[in-house]
């Protein structure tokens, strides 16, 4: 039975039945990307994980040359001008990288730090920051979270006030910033007035991280997983931000950021599908080969049923994602669907990696077993891009407000 499960696992490029959201174009993009991942990235992942850092500029330039950062960005700035289904397809394939850190770093650049810039930024800002980020020349990060404000975005303390010359003076402390150590610029959310209330007093800025007054700390954060991810604390100490670096309108930052979050959630779900499937594949293979009490581990019905159940859950998550992506392309507000999918993704990431680790027995508890890295890395999916609890509160609010 485990054997037949394995056969439905992969969706080959040459399938003749049309995919529900992916065309041949999506397939070709995925194939080219997975070739690059296999030859240029996966061969180095173990070393980068050991060193607790991956060379973001080198990797981003390679990926940028291929075009992964700009699927749904305007062609004028080097993007492809395609719909969100292409972002989803690219994210799914990014999941075939053998660690969680690099796909996360990439989605920070393509779907978290740049969407507001692309939609609301001035011509000047887009030329300055968007174009080189799409090409992979620049590395970016999104600086929203703070020691006292994670899920509670509205509660940030970072503040920017105008000086006499009309430029902004930025002060604050940002925490858990992915790509933060190596990034050339940050999309920073800061309070910019005291009048508008917590939802109307914020603005987004493009801030060069080589500006005087920017201090970064990468050494003190030792993480449970995502080892090669570059996680930093960033301090802004009277940093002068030119007035031209404000994204869109002053006071609209909170709304722009909430909008960026929807894509972040969908992309996170898309990135999780490949590693979760890989967990199941590895476990099916291992439990078939590993003998105990004269039979394969997978001969036990409890193992078969658990694998079957997890596969069903994973395919349900995939279906929910594809529905959310379809509705998003049609222009609907997908906050509810994206939150549901993101919650399911976090929960399933824990369930599948934990169960698969269990079925690997003693080997499953070793550093060399590929399941353990996925167990550590995917654990973040219940926390990052909105915690499970935040997703539950969004979904329940939607339900009960009707």
């Amino acid at each position, binding site marked *: 039975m485990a054997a037949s499960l394995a*056969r439905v696992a992969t969706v*080959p*490029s*040459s*399938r003749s039945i049309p995919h529900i959201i992916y065309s*041949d*174009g999506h397939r*070709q*993009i995925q*194939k*080219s*990307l997975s*070739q*690059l991942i*296999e030859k240029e990235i996966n061969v180095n992942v173990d070393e980068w994980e050991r060193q607790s850092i991956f060379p973001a500029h080198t990797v981003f330039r390679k990926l940028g*040359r*291929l*075009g*992964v950062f700009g*699927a749904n960005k305007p062609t004028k700035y080097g993007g*492809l001008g*395609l719909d969100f289904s292409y972002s989803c397809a*690219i994210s799914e394939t990014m999941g075939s990288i053998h660690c969680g850190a690099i796909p996360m770093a990439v989605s920070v650049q393509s779907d978290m730090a740049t969407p507001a810039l692309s939609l609301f930024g001035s011509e000047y800002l887009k030329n300055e920051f968007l174009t080189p980020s799409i090409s992979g020349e620049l590395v970016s990060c999104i600086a929203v979270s703070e020691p006292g404000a994670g899920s509670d975005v509205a509660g940030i303390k970072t503040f920017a006030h105008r000086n006499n010359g009309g430029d902004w003076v930025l002060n604050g402390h940002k925490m858990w910033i992915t790509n933060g150590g190596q990034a050339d610029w940050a999309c920073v959310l800061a309070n910019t007035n005291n009048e508008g209330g917590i939802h109307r007093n914020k603005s987004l800025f493009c801030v060069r991280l080589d500006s005087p007054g920017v201090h970064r700390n990468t050494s003190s954060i030792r993480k449970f997983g995502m080892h090669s991810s570059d996680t930093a604390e960033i301090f802004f100490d009277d940093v002068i931000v030119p007035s031209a670096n404000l994204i869109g309108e002053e006071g609209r930052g909170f709304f722009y950021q909430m909008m960026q979050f929807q894509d972040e959630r969908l992309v996170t779900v898309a990135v999780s599908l490949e590693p979760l499937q890989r967990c199941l594949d590895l476990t099916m293979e291992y439990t078939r080969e590993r003998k105990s009490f004269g039979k394969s581990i997978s001969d036990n019905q409890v193992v078969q049923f658990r694998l079957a159940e997890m596969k069903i859950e994973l395919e349900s998550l995939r279906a929910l994602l594809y529905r959310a992506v379809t509705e998003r392309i049609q222009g609907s507000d997908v906050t509810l669907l994206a939150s549901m999918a993101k919650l399911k993704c976090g929960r399933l990431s824990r369930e599948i990696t934990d169960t698969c680790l269990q079925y690997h027995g003693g080997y499953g508890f070793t550093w060399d077993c590929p399941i353990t890295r996925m167990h550590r890395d995917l654990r973040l999916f219940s926390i990052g891009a909105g915690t499970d609890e935040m997703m539950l509160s969004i979904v329940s609010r939607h339900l009960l407000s009707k």
Partner: protein
Amino acid sequence: MRVLVGVKRVVDYAVKVRVKPDKTGVITEGVQHSINPFDEIALEEAVKLKEKKAATEVVAFSMGGPKCQEVLRTALAKGADKAIHIEVPDADASKLEPLHVARALKKIIENDKFDAVFLGKQAIDDDANQTGSLIAGILDWPQALYASKVEPDGKYLKVTREIDGGLDTIKVSLPAVLSADLRLNEPRYATLPNIMKAKKKPLEKKSAKDLGIDVTPQTKVLEVSEPPVRQAGGFVDDVSALITKLKEKGFIKA
């Protein structure tokens, strides 16, 4: 110089190939396929020549079932200007032989002027290594096989070939047939913008039947079987134990 490049659709090199239960061939249904890696190298060389202005046009060619269009689209995304698909029904595709492909190439070259045919030295599925020599023979063109370096030189191509014990440098007059070896170049990845642009490049489809190409098989596959499973090895303590073992097994003389 107009270059015609053959790209064959084969089971991807990373796929673990499995034999069909009835032993008539290998399982291709639901299996990842790609351009034959050696053909990819041939294509890359042609595209590079075009970038150096040594070639004016690169046309990709594939013969086989309807899905060959996938590899042709990839070839277009990697820099070919247009593509020609000689279609045969899926049932016949697995029985195509190098001679059939060489005949099809000849038809194309009769209808349209080309200065060179670039191919991979062999395909990774049947490893026949025949198409290049066959087409050179049929057309009576010079051949430069197993190329590891190609330098255009007016009406000639200077080609370095990898041979046993060294390198062989030859000069062939155009038109000529060239087959690419592994170290000729490192093929580029198809970039996403180019994949999208390739959708608009022309892909001409012709049926082998309309062109009057005879694809009657000349060989019959009797049986395809898995290679024997490697037996588990054993450990010996030292060299003398190893020699004793080898003698015991009769691998070295007592």
